[in-house]
């Protein structure tokens, strides 16, 4: 019993120690992030690597999510004679919730794992050590541009996800289900608010972008310099960032929309 308690205590201490380390890491990277403003080329490279290269999966997923949403919601709304309100419901679901959350989950799987593996492998092959010996801080040269790139990419990807999803919903609603196309767009315009809905969705995606990229670069940087260590870092990146996105989504939703409903 005592041994089990000891193990539990050790496990908890290790988790808290790692959590503290990840915050110190973020602090050091953030203080170095200002330097990347002087070298925008490094950030643009990362926006291409984590953002542009994630576009195919984000756009395809957005299209299908929008189409499925329209089908599912129509079946319920038609019972209440509210099928003409399909546009705003699809848009609100995507802009407020599914856009930021699903994009963040896909981003964690596609770009987060790649970031963790890349940085972990750089550590395992002594590339980070060699940079340090060349008096180049890897946190500024390698980690900071990736953090800023991820932070900027996710809101843009989430916006595209929602836009493609709304279009997918439109094609299904008007092409398959017979919803009036003018009603789809006009109801959407009337019911989706720039600040309450779109801005809150953007805030969510900025937070998710920050958290997913932070977890990915930290896991990569903190990985054991072995092939097994890199494999564990990528797995932990996807698992931890997915859980963090879902947990944070509840907190942000409660803060943003909790007292309206």
């Amino acid at each position, binding site marked *: 019993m005592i041994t089990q308690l000891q193990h539990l205590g050790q496990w908890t201490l290790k988790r808290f120690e790692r959590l503290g380390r990840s915050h110190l890491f973020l602090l050091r990277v953030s203080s170095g992030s200002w330097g990347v403003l002087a070298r925008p080329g490094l950030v643009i490279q990362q926006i291409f690597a984590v953002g542009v290269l994630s576009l195919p999966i984000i756009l395809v997923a957005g299209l299908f999510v929008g189409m499925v949403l329209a089908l599912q919601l129509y079946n319920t709304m038609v019972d209440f004679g509210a099928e003409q309100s399909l546009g705003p419901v699809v848009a609100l679901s995507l802009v407020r919730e599914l856009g930021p959350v699903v994009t963040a989950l896909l981003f964690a799987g596609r770009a987060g794992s790649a970031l963790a593996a890349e940085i972990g492998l*750089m550590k395992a092959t*002594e*590339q980070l050590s060699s940079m340090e010996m060349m*008096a*180049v*801080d890897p946190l500024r040269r390698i980690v900071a541009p990736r953090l800023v790139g991820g932070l900027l990419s996710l809101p843009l990807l989430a916006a595209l996800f929602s836009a493609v999803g709304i279009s997918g919903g439109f094609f299904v609603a008007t092409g398959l289900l017979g919803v009036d196309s003018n009603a789809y767009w006009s109801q959407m315009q009337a019911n989706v608010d720039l600040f309450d809905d779109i801005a809150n969705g953007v805030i969510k995606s900025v937070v998710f972008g920050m958290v997913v990229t932070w977890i990915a670069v930290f896991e990569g940087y903190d990985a054991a310099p072995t092939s097994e260590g890199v494999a564990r870092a990528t797995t932990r990146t996807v698992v931890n960032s997915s859980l963090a996105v879902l947990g944070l989504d509840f907190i942000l939703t409660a803060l943003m929309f909790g007292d309206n409903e």
Partner: protein
Amino acid sequence: MLQDSPLVEIRGLHFGYSGRMIFDEVDIDIQRGKITAIMGPSGTGKTTLLRLIGGQERPVRGTIRVDGANVPGLSRKHLYQLRKKMGMLFQSGALLTDLNVFDNVAFPLREHTDLPDIMIRDLVLIKLQAVGLRGARELMPSALSGGMARRVALARAIALDPMIMMYDEPFSGQDPISMGVLVKLIRELNDALGMTTIIVSHDVNETASIADYLYLLSEGKVVEHGTPERLRQAGSEWTRQFLEGLPDGPVPFHYPAPDFVEELLQFPA
């Protein structure tokens, strides 16, 4: 005055991790302009010593002075300033895999200088010419052999004309031709550029052929030091066993175990 003192002066070095002592009261002097080799069996912390000199590890106790500055006591800013005057060749080469040969060598120049591109190009070509790989400048690291990768890494390490070059096992895993090329390059670069060189290695013949001074480490201590000739002639039995690669001697062939015949005759419980 400072010019006469050793470039690297290590005094009373204590270092260990995970409850294991790696260095115990180690004193080492690296003389300016010379090639000093640190040798010893695998696992004696030779690479760790280079990491300590470069400030990538901190000792438990003791001082490590490089050009008069105590490395463990330096702030990050001052440590990075000192590292600009140090070059290190990693065992793997540690080339940046997303950059080609040219950009790898240009990397420290682009990071630390505001030189125009045309001048960087010339400097990179000079360094690549020195290691014989000017013609390979467009290749990616994945297209290089182990020996070529090390030579590119060497060109990168000398890009900023360091005062001290540190080599971590430069000869391990090299074919005879690559080994010969590296031996020649290390000696020539040291003399031509007026550098100070530290080689960490257990390739006895190659290292002893170019080293001016040898330190032999074992079990956390400096076992012996002197010129290669002196150590070969007047070294202890352990030193001779190490330098001549004898399979048995003070370091026994067999790991400590009970008597072999007795153990064979014993009936397992």
